[in-house]
């Protein structure tokens, strides 16, 4: 019992960051129908910027909450700008071109950021531990059954879960309840018709990128604190978040959240009960099976084409 509980907590905790990254994927996908391959690298840059800020403010000895606010705020701001720039320079000029073409520039941007980050001038190839702004602490500790059967939940687990749940809520509210969100949903159907409604489509798309990138930054900071910062850290989480977004039903905000958690849980449970060597493979098998049963993902709407 304690074992399963602990594994579920582990799974939710990882799943929460996948969910955060997946939310950004889904947003961008929603408006542009573009798999933003550079999204994982934006997440990485979020971690890198957070690292710089944390190093920078370390001598001042700020209180934890102040430091966290500056780190999160700074990383989100920087990534929002980065997201804007990527969209502006690499995607916007290709707005009316086939999606596959944009996909390739997205891959190009992703490679560019990875390789830039690997040079010593930007970050360097070596993983760096995050400065001790906030230490992992056990905040919940249950003993189940016996004194050795301990289940622990750390402050970082709670942070990642809380942030992703909260941000999903905010996002859902923005998209479903605000004027900007309505514009976003309109643009996701067609650019030209949306602009006939008086919507500035470019601005709406930029807004989406900035929002999605800021979310990726949040995930980046959480993982930087929990694990470390490294130039290729965006690769696997980026991929898994993409899988999560599709699994949940790409374009769907709650779908991204659920997808992220599901991927995190599958991965953890396979490692915990079968073999860690197969965890990614099993996660993908489950993914393919789910997709075969629900071709538009768990919460995705199947839009039958009307003839």
């Amino acid at each position, binding site marked *: 019992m304690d074992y399963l509980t602990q594994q579920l907590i582990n799974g939710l905790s990882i799943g929460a960051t996948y969910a955060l990254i997946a939310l950004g994927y889904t947003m961008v996908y929603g408006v542009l129908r573009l798999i933003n391959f550079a999204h994982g690298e934006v997440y990485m840059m979020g971690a890198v910027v957070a690292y710089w800020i944390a190093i920078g403010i370390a001598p001042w000895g700020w209180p934890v909450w102040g430091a966290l606010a500056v780190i999160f705020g700074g990383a989100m701001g920087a990534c929002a700008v980065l997201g804007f720039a990527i969209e502006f320079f690499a995607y916007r000029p290709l707005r009316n071109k086939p999606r596959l073409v944009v996909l390739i520039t997205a891959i190009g941007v992703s490679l560019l950021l990875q*390789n830039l980050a690997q040079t010593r001038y930007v970050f360097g190839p070596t993983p760096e531990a995050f400065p001790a702004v906030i230490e*992992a602490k056990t905040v919940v500790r249950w003993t189940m059954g016996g004194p050795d059967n301990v289940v622990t939940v750390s402050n970082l687990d709670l942070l990642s879960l809380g942030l992703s749940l909260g941000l999903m809520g905010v996002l859902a509210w923005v998209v479903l309840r605000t004027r900007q969100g309505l514009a976003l949903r309109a643009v996701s159907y067609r650019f030209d018709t949306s602009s006939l409604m008086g919507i500035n489509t470019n601005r709406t798309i930029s807004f989406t990128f900035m929002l999605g990138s800021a979310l990726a930054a949040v995930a980046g900071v959480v993982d930087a604190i929990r694990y*470390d910062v490294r130039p*290729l850290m965006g690769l696997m989480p980026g991929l898994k978040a993409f899988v999560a977004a599709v699994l949940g039903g790409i374009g769907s905000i709650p779908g991204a959240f659920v997808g992220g958690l599901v991927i995190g849980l599958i991965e953890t449970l396979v490692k915990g009960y079968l073999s*860690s060597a197969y965890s990614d493979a099993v996660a993908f098998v489950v993914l393919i099976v789910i997709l075969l049963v629900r071709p538009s993902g768990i919460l995705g709407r199947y839009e039958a084409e009307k003839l």
Partner: protein
Amino acid sequence: KDKGQRGSSSEILIGEFASMTGATATFGQSSHEGLMLAVEQVNEKGGVLGKKVKVISEDNRSDANEAVTAVQKLISRDRVVAVIGEVASKRSLAGGGVCQQYKIPMLSPASTNPTVTQVGDYIFRICFTDDFQGGVCAKFAEKRGWKKVAIFTDVANDYSKGLTAGFKDGYQGTIVADESFREGDNDFKAQLTKIKATGPDAVFLPGYYTDVVKVVKQARQLELNVPFFGGDGWDSPTTLAAGAVMDGCFYTDHYSPDDPRPAVREFIAAYQKKYARTPDAMAILGYDAGMVMMDAIKRAGKSEPAAIRDALAATKGFPGASGTITIDEKRNARKPAFVLELKGGKTHIADTIEPG
């Protein structure tokens, strides 16, 4: 098959292939930096055989296929007389094939898989082999009286798998859990939770420093409070910087940063001066690979591949920064292993084990 003259009149050309980008860039860049430091030092003192040494370095993006291309270029375009590389055994095997084919001596700084030097008589290494180091770890575990050990291997990594195999061969106690992860993984709690459930006395973690600290940190969060121990892959400023979390953990190494030998002290000082960083294991091995290679060229008396090969094979008692290096008949380095204990971000020697 080899067309044209090799070696230039004014310089001695040595080729290097390394993972300067890609998944294991951190190792490639470290060993590259060590090598460059060695060459710089030798050139400052007038070079070798009256000529300056020039290293031509090629990136292989951490990919075996590209490693072959890079070595092919070094040998047939740049016409180097010797090759240094790679860190990863897979890529050393791939590149070594080309070196052997052209009879160009290759010296690997850090490829520990036994098969690497079996490619042919032109392939050498200056590091431990996996079976040796795994055996050292097993001996050490027994000395400590650890009856139940859990193993946590990086299955995407030859080095890690090699150490695990060596450990299993040598260890007499019970292996209570045999778990694995893959390089690039960030979260190990699932496996650690599983390991914890088996109640081990210690955990054998033959990984690289890029993962080790994260694993131990997460273990402590899960209240898995037994010692972790591993191989020279742990050696890095990162591991030391983690501080108290790593207290009570052990790893085997070629040297200790507190080693008073002048070769060690001088290397660390020079490295820090040049790169403003503390060297890690790969930097030391890269440095030593360069030094051993240049020493062999000097002893060969001419910059011809076959002569250099023979001189390399004859290396004996070379005072490297990573220990005293002797190349044996299988073209592997023999050097003693230290077992270091971590405490408060420092190491001290817990044991010394001679090659058997």
